[in-house]
């Protein structure tokens, strides 16, 4: 037989192994790059830049923040052209807030020291130089300097007034809620057709009382608003137009070109604080995402209540109770399939089953007087939570099973040998030992649920919910309410909003927030699991 030698390059095939290694490196690189991208893009957007005034060749002047620069080929000549995206604000004056400016057209750059960025409740930020404050048609502070104590005192008092106004509005909200409750009671009475005139009369009297309260509050609100509307700040925009902004609309005046580093850092921190504590404004493109965080958290909590018992029970069944036979195989395949079914299908199921079957049945049985307005027969917190519980239950099962598997059989045998029943063993020995595993599963389930959006779109998430799902009004947890969600917020603001450019800081930072939450949850779970593994395996695995 002829001896066949294999050439060394074929035997070792080092380049191919290199390719394998490169694939792994690529996958890891992409993860790092993705995280880095979101962080680098997101973190910069809340940093207050200096305000620049550009003098263009055609004589026009623009004041604003340089958003980004890029080099693009000129459409006619094909030569690369550098251009600037300028955020010039004042959408109420010019209709847009952004503009691309060719760098070649710019003849003058300057940073006017008195230029300010004005954050306000409508129309996005305004940029300009403050001139004077008017009260009615009389100049009140002239000229105005935003560093001046006079201005600061005035602004503080306006803010105080606005806080009062907010109080009044909260009270009006409360009254509206009462009236809504009374309306429901009335519907209920009418539905029962209990011709109980005294109850009817009492109801009407109560209603009249609250309507009177409402009237008083509304009057108060009107006077407050009128008073607030008197104070107007006049700002000169870049093109010389006088922009008059009621002080009541202004949330902050930022003298961006006269701020020290400390002030900038404080402003930066304040913007993040606002992001997580405030309500959204202006079609969600400004303000904060507090209701979305709140909605996400409440949904996840309710989901946890459902997912843990079911997940743990299934895992116990598979590992502690069932003999390993065809049935456990089927269960295992079912668990696996449950994990693999596309999330949107759960959304469809949640809609068809929870909302339109269970929900309408509940409405028919318990809320017939509300017809045709659905209570539970429409998307809401409960249905979304249950849908997500179904979606995430395999995660809990798998993690719990792993934890159960890690418990040495001797421990079980010991407990049984001491005379404990199976349930006692499970209850007092197995479950405490497996608790970290269950927790890992729960954290992973929460991480998954936090990032999941598609099923929620069918089961109760909305872009703007008027009320939080949990509040201080009876019965405190409103399972039927629609809610906001961070992930959906990203989709909505980034893709459905009419003004995508202006929404960029918002959407990047919401993404950042979601990512931080999800990554933190995942890392916690991974850390926890590694600890369990080390505990039971005593080494690396």
């Amino acid at each position, binding site marked *: 037989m002829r001896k066949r030698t294999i050439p060394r390059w074929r035997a070792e095939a080092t380049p191919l192994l290199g*390719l394998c290694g490169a694939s792994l490196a690529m996958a890891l690189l992409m993860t790092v790059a993705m995280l880095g991208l979101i962080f680098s*893009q997101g973190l910069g957007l809340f940093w207050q830049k200096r305000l620049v005034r550009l003098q263009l060749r055609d004589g026009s002047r623009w004041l604003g923040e340089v958003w980004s620069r890029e080099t693009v080929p000129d459409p006619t000549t094909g030569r690369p052209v550098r251009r600037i995206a300028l955020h010039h604000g004042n959408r109420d004056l010019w209709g847009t807030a952004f503009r691309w400016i060719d760098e070649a057209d710019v003849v003058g750059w300057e940073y006017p020291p008195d230029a300010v960025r004005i954050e306000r409740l409508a129309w996005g930020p305004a940029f300009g130089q403050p001139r004077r404050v008017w009260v009615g048609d009389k100049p009140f502070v002239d000229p105005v300097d935003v560093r001046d104590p006079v201005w600061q005192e005035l602004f503080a008092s306006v803010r105080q007034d606005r806080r009062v106004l907010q109080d009044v509005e909260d009270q009006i909200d409360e009254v509206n809620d009462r009236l809504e409750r009374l309306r429901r009671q009335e519907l209920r009475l009418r539905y029962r057709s209990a011709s109980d005139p005294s109850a009817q009369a009492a109801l009407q009297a109560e209603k009249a009382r609250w309507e009177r309260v409402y009237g008083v509050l509304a009057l108060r609100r009107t006077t407050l608003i009128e008073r607030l509307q008197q104070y107007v700040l006049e700002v000169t925009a870049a093109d010389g137009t006088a922009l008059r902004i009621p002080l009541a609309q202004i949330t902050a005046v930022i003298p961006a070109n006269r701020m020290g580093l400390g002030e900038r850092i404080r402003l930066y921190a304040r913007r993040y604080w606002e992001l997580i504590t405030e309500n959204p404004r202006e079609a969600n493109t400004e303000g904060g995402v507090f209701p979305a965080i709140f909605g996400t958290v409440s949904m996840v909590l309710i989901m946890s209540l459902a997912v843990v018992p079911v997940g743990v029970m299934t895992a116990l069944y598979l590992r502690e109770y069932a003999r390993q036979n065809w049935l456990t195989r089927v269960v295992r395949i*079912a668990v696996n399939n449950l994990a693999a079914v596309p999330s949107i299908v759960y959304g469809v199921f949640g809609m068809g089953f929870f909302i339109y079957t269970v929900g309408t049945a509940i409405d028919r049985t318990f809320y017939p007087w509300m017809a045709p307005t659905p209570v539970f027969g429409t998307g809401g917190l409960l249905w979304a939570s249950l849908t997500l519980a179904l979606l995430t239950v395999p995660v809990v099962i798998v993690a719990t099973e792993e934890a159960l598997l890690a418990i040495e059989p001797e421990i079980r045998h010991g407990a049984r040998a001491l005379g404990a029943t199976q349930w006692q063993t499970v209850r007092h020995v197995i479950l405490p030992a497996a608790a970290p595993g269950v927790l890992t599963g729960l954290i992973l389930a929460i991480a998954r649920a936090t990032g999941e959006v598609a099923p929620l779109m069918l089961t109760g998430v909305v872009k703007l919910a008027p009320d939080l799902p949990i509040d201080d009004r009876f019965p405190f947890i409103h399972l039927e309410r629609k809610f906001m969600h961070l992930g959906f917020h990203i989709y909505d603001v980034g893709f459905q909003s009419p003004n995508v450019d202006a929404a960029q800081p918002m959407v990047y930072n919401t993404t950042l927030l979601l990512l931080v939450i999800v990554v933190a949850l995942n890392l916690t779970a991974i850390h926890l699991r590694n600890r369990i593994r080390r505990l039971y395996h005593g080494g690396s695995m």
Partner: protein
Amino acid sequence: MAVPWEVWARIGRQWRDYRLRRQWADAVARVAIRTGGLLVIVAILGVAFVLLAESWPLFRSPALQPVAVGVSPEQAFLPVLATTLLMDDYGETLMGIAPDGQWHLLAWPSLRRLQTGVLMPPTEKVDSTPPTPSVTAGWADPWGRRGAVARPSGQIWLWEATWNWQYEGDRRTLAGLSVQALPWVQVPLAPDEAVTRLTVLAGERLEQTQVAALTSRGRLFLVVSQRAGGLFDEKWVPAVWEVQPRPPQMTALAIAQGYLYVGTSEGDVWVYELQEAAPPVRREAVRLYPEDPAPVTAMTTLLGRFALAIGDARGRVCVAFPVRRDEGWQFTRVRDFRPQDGAIRSIVPAQWTRGFLTLTDRGTVAWHHSTAGTTRWSARLAPTAWSHAVIARDMGNVLLVDAAGRGHAYRLRDPHPEVSLRALFGRVWYEGYDRPQFIWQSSSGSQEFEPKYSLVPLIFGTLKGTFYALIFAVPLGLLGALYMGQFMHPTVRAQLKPLIELMAGLPSVVLGFVAGLWLAPRAETWFPALLVWHGAFLLGGLTSPLVWRLWPWKPQERSRQDRLKLVLVALWLTALFLTCLAFNRAIEQVFFGGNYHRWFQERWGWAYEQRNALVVGFAMGYTVVPIIFSIAEEAIATVPRDWIAGALALGATPWQTLRSIVIPASLSGIVSAVMVGFGRAVGETMIVLMATGNTPVLDPSPFVGFRTISANLAVELPEAAVGDTHYRVLFLSALLLFGFTIVVNTVAELLRERVRRRYYQR
């Protein structure tokens, strides 16, 4: 029945007894956990059941059932002209106009006479009742609740029926019918001539009606109303035209939007185009069945007034409409239905959908649907001929009229007539299109819109997205897993795994956001560089061992070496990537003549959209990589260590061991990894929603977006009306998606189980 006290006492005693109590607890826990464990199966079956239950009604067969009420024989004879019959919105009453010029309101199904009046213009006095017979022909347009009658003098009157419903809470009562009449136009007739047949197309207002009238001498007149007067005192003035040239033997008439159609005894349809202020112009004469012509006996326009349903003397039924060709609009027979056993006497369109009833002279009734392209139901209901029928707007209440003028009440049950397997999965020739196509276009504002429920574009989009995701993810995931499972130090492996898990944990909404808002615009600029990058990656990967060999400072420890190798390769790849980007313009110059948009447009006919299949494929691939990676890695890790050690001890190189031991041994696991990745990509929703144009097009070009089943569900299901056809079709698509992933995943799981059992034996 009250439980005796002793029983309670016994339970109490047992509860106090610790041993018994713990046995109880044990038993209860056992049952509870068993049930809980099986809950997972229940959940899967429940999902399947709900999806099935919601989409099942789409395929329930329709039925036309007689409504059994005691209709007395004398009541069964309708006093009115069958062609003037109209039914109200709720299907509770009928109205029609009698030859003597009276109108009658009849109850459905008892045909009791509820109200009678004289068709009279508002100005004329009631006592000057015209002498009988005062109506020679009549027609009702079911969509407009309007119609026309011809008087013996040749005068044509328009009329409009209004049902005066009164609503009180949930209750509804009919206060009566009022019929408004409008003497409209005089058709120039010869002394012994009379109008024998009318057909009407109602406009937005009563005066905007178009009427075609056939006389006893075989002349055809067309009355078209034309706008006159200014912007504010707008008036509509009718103009009478005699239609020339006219076909020899006219047997059927129909007016659709812009056209007058005349069917002849030779089996032709003559098409006239209606003109502004001019007589209609003959466009063409189309022989419906050139090989075997038969007289056209019935014609009607369908919902939307665009398509025509036509029946002939041999019982053949077809739908035809104008189709745009290069040489102009051509009237084309588009689809055929099941032939009936006798001559078609009448065709009655439904008002809520593109369905129609055909009635024959042998007593057969059939229910067809144009879009579905099927004869949904047919039966011989009577021994005698039918003459006409009327269908209620929504409820499916039907009154069939036989040749003797007797009315028969029926109820049509068919909630989803537009769905058939052909309509869902086949090419359908929709109205206004030039050929049969696969189209998904579920709704629009108009009631007359023809819904297009072809699932093919969605399935195509799903597979297209999955394809691009997998060509990206499979090599990366599998090769990476091979490397990690086979060549890496366990310590490094344990350190890197969390990073991969993190990758799997990234929410898809974040990826979709990055792909749609950040990557898509940049990918457009950098496209040439990214294209070349694929080659550069291959090159970089293959040369990476060289980089390692040339690297001067190598640590001693294996684990440190592995870590450093990875870092070096990553740096090397990054450097190559940045080089590609730097030469972006140059690459575009060299390969694409300076403009790749134009290059692809000219060579391949592909226009570049910013949010396209490649971008989505990349983002979806990103989600799939960690899944493929971890399952494949697990499969590789389960290959027994001693096999590998044995191979290496016999002198095999690591590559040879990998090729001939590890890969064959873990093959089913690897296949399973790809399948699970496939299942995941199929169901991805948010990325598709955010990073594609989301248009349901059938275009294989990688530069065009698509719409997947899942994205379609997310977009359309919240808007769909519960129980509607659209809603159920969406559930059907969800069922498809569900079934598909279940099958793929179960097969993958069985494969994986095989691996586990082979090596673990436990």
